[in-house]
């Protein structure tokens, strides 16, 4: 009899000691209620990856949870502590609808006519910057300055979608846009000329020296080599070797070199070697 009474008392106590029953899954930024059992006053704790809330509640009543308390996706713990102890339950908050996209486009400068040279990566977020883990389609649009645009829809995997595309033969800006629903992120990269093609120099004698200049410098696709690119001139004459690194200005590199008697002049830019000219019959 005594044992039975004790069991009853224990059951009564457990009934008074409230349990919490959150929904199994919640969407970020949407309010909901957590039902409780038991009776009496209790402290309620909501512990999430980015937020901790504490409030006093009455057990046996529903506990409303504001939308602002569940902005971050992830695992949440709901804990109620009354006079008889604490009880807890876990639930997950999932990301809301896709709303934002972080878009990475590399490289910011790319040589023309390069395979798989342009890399695009998009991370899909909801409005609270939770990664959207459910697959969604990211539309990558590549719009070169000349030529037709390219459209590449890619399904995201655990919040990320990526693609590669070749650069076109013409230099100039290329616009790439990543779109998810209403979210659209444009980026621009520059396609730049490749190595110089047909590097040629010519020489003109002046009163004291020889003026050396290149033909207008272009790559093999006909794109102008950008100003500032270094062209190296080398002249060998009776007094030794003379070298000078000259930047291209207005499409041409030019310099004046002192020449003593017969001389041989050559030109190079990076790994590209140009023609060679001899003055006074060469060496």
């Amino acid at each position, binding site marked *: 009899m005594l044992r039975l009474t004790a069991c009853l008392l224990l059951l009564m106590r457990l009934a008074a000691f409230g349990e919490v029953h959150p929904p199994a899954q919640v969407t970020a930024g949407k309010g909901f209620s957590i039902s409780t059992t038991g009776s009496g006053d209790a402290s309620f704790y909501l512990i999430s990856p980015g937020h901790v809330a504490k409030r006093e509640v009455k057990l046996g009543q529903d506990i409303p949870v504001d939308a602002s308390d569940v902005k971050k996706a992830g695992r949440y713990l709901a804990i109620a502590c009354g006079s008889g102890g604490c009880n807890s339950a876990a639930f997950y908050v999932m990301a809301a609808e896709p709303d934002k996209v972080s878009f990475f486009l590399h490289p910011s400068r790319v040589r023309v006519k390069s395979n798989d040279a342009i890399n695009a990566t998009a991370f899909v977020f909801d409005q609270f910057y939770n990664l959207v883990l459910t697959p969604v389609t990211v539309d990558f649009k590549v719009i070169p300055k000349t030529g037709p645009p390219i459209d590449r829809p890619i399904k995201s995997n655990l919040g990320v979608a990526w693609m590669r595309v070749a650069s076109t033969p013409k230099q100039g800006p290329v616009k790439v846009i990543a779109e998810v629903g209403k979210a659209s992120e444009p980026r621009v990269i520059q396609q730049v000329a490749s190595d110089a093609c047909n590097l040629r120099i010519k020489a003109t004698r002046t009163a004291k020296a020889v003026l050396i200049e290149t033909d207008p410098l272009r790559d093999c696709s006909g794109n102008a080599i950008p100003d500032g690119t270094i062209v190296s001139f080398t002249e060998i004459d009776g007094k030794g070797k003379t070298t000078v690194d000259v930047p291209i*200005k207005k499409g041409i590199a030019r310099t004046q070199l002192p020449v003593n008697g017969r001389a041989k002049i050559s030109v190079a830019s990076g790994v590209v070697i140009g023609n060679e000219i001899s003055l006074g019959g060469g060496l």
Partner: protein
Amino acid sequence: MKAFLPLFIGLVTAGLVAMAWVESGGLALHEMRSAGTPQEAVEALVTDIQSRNWDRAYARLANSNDFEKQAFIRDLAGSSGSLRTYSSLESFKVWPVEAGADDATMRVRLNWSSAVGPLDDVRDLEVKKEGNVWKVVWPKPQFAKVPPQVIPVNYLRWDVIGRGPTDDWGVQNVDNPNVRITSMNAVERPDRVVIVGEVVNEDTVPAYVNVNATLLNSDSKPMDQEGSFDMISHTLLPRQVSPYRIDFPGFHLQQVKSVRMDVKAMLVPASADPVIAVTDQKMDKDPLGKNVLRGALVNQSGQTVNIAQVLADYYDANGRVIWVSDGYVDQALEPQVAVPFAVDVPDDVASKIHNYHVLVNHYSIHEGS
């Protein structure tokens, strides 16, 4: 005791002071100032130069009537923000080359402490006897004069607007330049391992470049890491090639299993000017018989380059970089004026050199970077 102690204290103090004075070179200085021998005359002159006592130094010259004192000062103290203006004479050594009754030739090695490190300067000075005193015949300073002219400049410069520290992740940024090490060679020297090679900027924008190397031992564990420091051109314009050299003092090649190379490239603002031609390059010997690469630098722009550094890399018959040496030029590069330079080449390397490539680094006060 009453008289003895003060006398004792006074005499001992005076004696000690006199001893230290002699020890500190006071007596030698006194004798040297009398310039009774060619050696003393040159030493006295250089001592005055060292203490920048220009009046007294100028007065010691046998040929002071040939040029102004200002020219003498400019010859030694430098001008136009040249490296010599950033230097002080730290020490010197004088020894005779030829000696006669009334004239002699003395060789002096001047060790300068400068803003970029120590500099050596060897000069032969003629010394003449005038009465009881020897005087130095200072070579008449020659300063090239540039004719007035207009030098057209199409100023070419890159500026960079990067992502700010407060900008969020995902905001587009400009990528770092594409830079590549085109050659690398590990060289054993008596007291060190040296890594030499070349690096090229393959991009269309200027690059800040630094090359680091890590020596790995037989367990592939790092033994030491060093960088190229001033043995590289840190700012490379598009398609520009720079030699680099990395020294590992105290290591030997047999300890090294492999070398991990790491080239860092950043996008930086830069200017394409000035253009400096390297003329009349040739392998030669200096007065002391050491191998040097000689030439002259011609600043083709219209603005003075205050300090220039010559970086030279040397190739063997297979086109492999076998050595990199450097030297700072202590004169400023005035526009269109040829300034000679010479950089040392080790004897064992000199015999293998088949070709070489010279690059000029520069510092201009008005740019500062």
